[in-house]
């Protein structure tokens, strides 16, 4: 017999769909079917059932081979690594729950480490912009119920957040948007003709690296001032036309992604987009929202912030929190050879960081907490598999609009496998002992 669990939250991307239905065996040990999730989410749930999962911690030997060890030994190794290091980096946190993030913070504070999350390679630049200029925003339900102007700037939700448009931004019939997609005009800004761009009412095929200039031009157009003939490859008349489309709506929302956060200008692109949003509020109602990637990078930012005061790239080495991306950010720390130990959890810097930074991870003593075999686990000295959050253990997560949703456990993890929270708690206890802390 089987049972179907409803209201399941998908632990993959920042869309954090919470209407997923998962069918499991009666004894709760096998996950059989997933309904309502996109292909990526479905695979997230189903792949947890792989027969070839790593089920025990393994330690890299002198000859390069792996040796299985117990969780107890793994926790010992990790605690010693953190106790000894002069400047350890504890990175990732984005694919785990807030309860685990909180214990991780406690460990980082005791170890006097640097701690950082995947915003460092993603929306960290958004956070810098928000710190410089603010953030007029809203929850996704507001978009669903009110928005008649939707802008996707430098992002491709058709591929990266597959159900975003059907759950929130384009198709839903909300309270004031009963005509669904017919009540909305879509503007896409992207150098490529993506699947999302193909759906647009207006696609501004922008010259790469000139988003900052185009955003400035839109602000100028709103004010009715002089413009050069062409900006960022877009003719001035088109820019003015788009400014009018934006202005003529009654509720607009700008969504943006890596196309602007990690291209030339980075945080300044977002800063200018936020400035444009603020300007549009002189005429009508506008909000702006980052398309967060990992399903709980937002949560990591929230927990860092209420416990330490900063959302990422936090340096605790002096016994109090400091923050300055460029100094306290992970890639810079690694590239400059500033860290002497690496702890990775809930992320894959081996795959996402520049190779020269990954080489640094390979050089130092390191631990990787991950259910998968990844490029990070490949270069780490200790690999600790844990249960999948949101599948084999529950815990609170934060959606791209900062709304907290408590993920559910739908199936048992493999026999004897610990959760992040279990393992981190063990490490914390051992570290406290080593440091002589109560």
């Amino acid at each position, binding site marked *: 017999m089987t049972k179907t669990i409803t*209201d399941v*939250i998908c632990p993959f991307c920042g869309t954090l769909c*919470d*209407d997923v239905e998962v069918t499991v065996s009666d004894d709760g040990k096998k996950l059989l079917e997933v309904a309502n999730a996109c292909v990526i989410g479905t695979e997230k749930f189903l792949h947890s059932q792989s027969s070839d999962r790593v089920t025990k911690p393994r330690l890299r030997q002198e000859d390069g081979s792996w040796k299985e060890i117990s969780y107890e030994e793994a926790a010992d190794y990790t605690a010693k690594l953190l106790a000894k290091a002069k400047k350890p980096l504890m990175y990732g946190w984005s694919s785990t729950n*807030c*309860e685990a993030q*909180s214990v991780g913070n406690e460990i980082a*504070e*005791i170890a006097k480490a640097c701690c950082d999350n995947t915003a460092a390679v993603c929306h960290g630049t958004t*956070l810098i912009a*928000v*710190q*410089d*200029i*603010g*953030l*007029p*925003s*809203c*929850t*996704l*339900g*507001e978009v*669903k*119920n*009110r928005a008649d102007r939707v802008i996707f700037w430098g992002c491709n939700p058709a591929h990266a957040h597959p159900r975003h448009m059907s*759950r929130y931004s384009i198709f839903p019939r*909300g*309270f*004031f948007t009963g005509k669904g997609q017919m009540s909305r005009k879509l503007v896409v800004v992207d150098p490529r003709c993506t699947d999302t761009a193909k759906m647009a009412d207006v696609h501004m095929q922008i010259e790469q690296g000139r988003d900052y200039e185009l955003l400035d031009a839109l602000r100028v157009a709103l004010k009715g001032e002089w413009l050069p003939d062409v900006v960022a490859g877009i003719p001035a008349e088109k820019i003015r036309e788009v400014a009018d489309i934006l202005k003529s709506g009654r*509720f607009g929302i700008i969504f943006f992604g890596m196309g602007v956060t990690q291209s030339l200008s980075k945080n300044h692109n977002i800063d200018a987009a936020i400035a444009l949003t*603020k300007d549009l509020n002189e005429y*009508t*109602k506008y*909000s702006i929202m980052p398309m967060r990637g990992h399903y709980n990078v937002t949560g990591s*930012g929230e*927990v860092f*912030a*209420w*416990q*330490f*005061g*900063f*959302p990422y790239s936090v340096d605790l080495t*002096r*016994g*109090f*929190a400091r*923050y300055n991306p460029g100094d306290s950010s992970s890639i810079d720390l690694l590239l400059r050879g500033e860290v002497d130990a690496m702890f990775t959890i809930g992320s894959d810097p081996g795959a996402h960081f520049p190779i020269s930074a990954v080489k640094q991870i390979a050089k130092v003593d390191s631990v990787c907490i991950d259910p998968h075999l990844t490029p990070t686990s490949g270069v780490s000295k200790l690999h600790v598999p844990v249960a999948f959050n949101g599948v084999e253990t*529950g*815990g*609170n997560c*934060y959606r791209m*609009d*900062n*709304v*907290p*949703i*408590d993920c559910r456990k739908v199936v048992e993890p493999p026999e004897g496998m610990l959760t992040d929270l279990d393992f981190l708690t063990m490490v914390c206890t051992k570290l406290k002992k080593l440091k002589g802390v*109560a």
Partner: protein
Amino acid sequence: MSEFIIKNGHVFDPVQGIKGDKKDICIKDGKIVDKVGSSAKVIDAKDKTVMAGAVEIHAHVAGPKVNLGRIYRPEDKLFSCTPTKGMERMGSGASIPTTFKTGYEYAKMGFAVAMEAAMPPLFSRHVHEEIRDTPIIDEGAFPVFGNNWFVLEYLKNHEIENTAAYCAWLLNVTKGYALKVVNPGGTEAWGWGLNCLTVKDPVPYFDITPAEIVRGLMEANEYLGLPHSVHIHPNNLGNPGCYETTLDTLKLTEGLKAKNKFGREQVLHLTHTQFHSYGGTNWGDFESKAKEVTDYVNKNKTITIDTGNVTLDETTTMTADGPFEHHLTGLNHLKWANVDVELETAAGVVPYIYSPNISVCAIQWAIGLEIPLMMKDPMRCYITTDHPNAGPFTRYPRVYKWLMSEKARKQQIEGFKHKDKVLSQTSIGTLDREISLYELAQMTRAGPAKSLGLAAMCGGLKPGMDADVAIYNINPDKPIANPDDIEKAFSRCAAFIKSGVQVVNNGEIVSNGNKRTLWVNVKAKENPQVARDINEKFVKYYSMTQANYEALGHHFVPNPYAIEVDATQV
């Protein structure tokens, strides 16, 4: 559990009418008792002041807009962080402290309870996570109702029973404490970039007025018999001339009587009254209307207020009055954050510098002090800074100094660049009243506890009450040589016992105690109509399922304390 005896202290307890007499306070098993055995730990409070733990009735300390403030203000933490020390986690944030720092700072000032002033219900899990991570102090949170679509629709047809049923449901699923109303109707209008500036401005589409919203919620509150009254931040906050909207709002209480089993006598609590007591027509002729507002409140015993004192610091404003924050960024051009919350509310955040060199700020400072000095009943007037809006809560001792010492006020006025304007636009120069220690205990302990419906539990030192006892280095028998000594004494208590555990000794944290989350568990009559309406709105309009909205597991509220309300027999 431990026994304590606090000996030889000068006790100020408005609950028992003790006005500084030397009295021993006995504690056993977390409660005040008549006497204890000889093995009780002795705390010598000779020449010191003893009061119950203070009760914070309104502060923004936990939740999404507070954290947005932290995230977007790294400069609030520059060079001002405190390191990990002993059992204290590291702390940071001058105007928006981190959760650890919040708990420690309140405890070091002898606060036992703090109420998070505004919880957007969709974000209840976030609020409770931060409350859980705030050590030592008991906390509760007020969900916001004044712009909620269910409330707007029910009250348009004056459906009090349905409104009450919805309010009961929402309090239960969010583990909330009271019915909070912020800029009624105006924040829903803000969903379209609009606002409601008077109590008669209709809300776009919903076509209901703020007056109808406030009156209806007060009626629902009394229908349920909740421990606290409706807690309101009226329309038109912060604008010259807004006092008229304030009086219109207060007049909505006429004819209403408090109905509850908790000893609460008010039907409305007006918060951060300073921001709502402005006259004039622009920033040039801006003046105080503290007298007009306090005159009304003095005459109407069904209203309690808190002050919202300006402390003259660089701070961060944050409120569910979204349109106000947009207006403020238009004035000072500082970074503006805003979050509109579907079906429920909004929030805005803007930094603000209350400079003593700016006449408007100095007048605001004066208004904040005029109000408590003009209020006749200290049991109905509580001291706050609407933290962090008018100033950080860590400045409370400075506010006490200004209230207790006319000399300190005069010194501050002398330091104003536009001293003459402050004196001409307010009556602060004419007020020589000095708040006594007993009145201070009324305004910071017994009064707010009673208003919150917690009079049986906290705010006093009567046997049977919770053992929250604060001891301050201030000797009532000695005249105060330097007013700064008042500020110093109340900034770091000599000792603080919270729920029968000593948590502070000589201004240092010695234990995390046993913090609780206070919430109101309302048993209401079954209402299939409302249940169906809730279900429908989740299916159609919310971006989250009802089951996930209602999920607030144990890991969010590990130590709950429910105040039970039985509204089934109404």
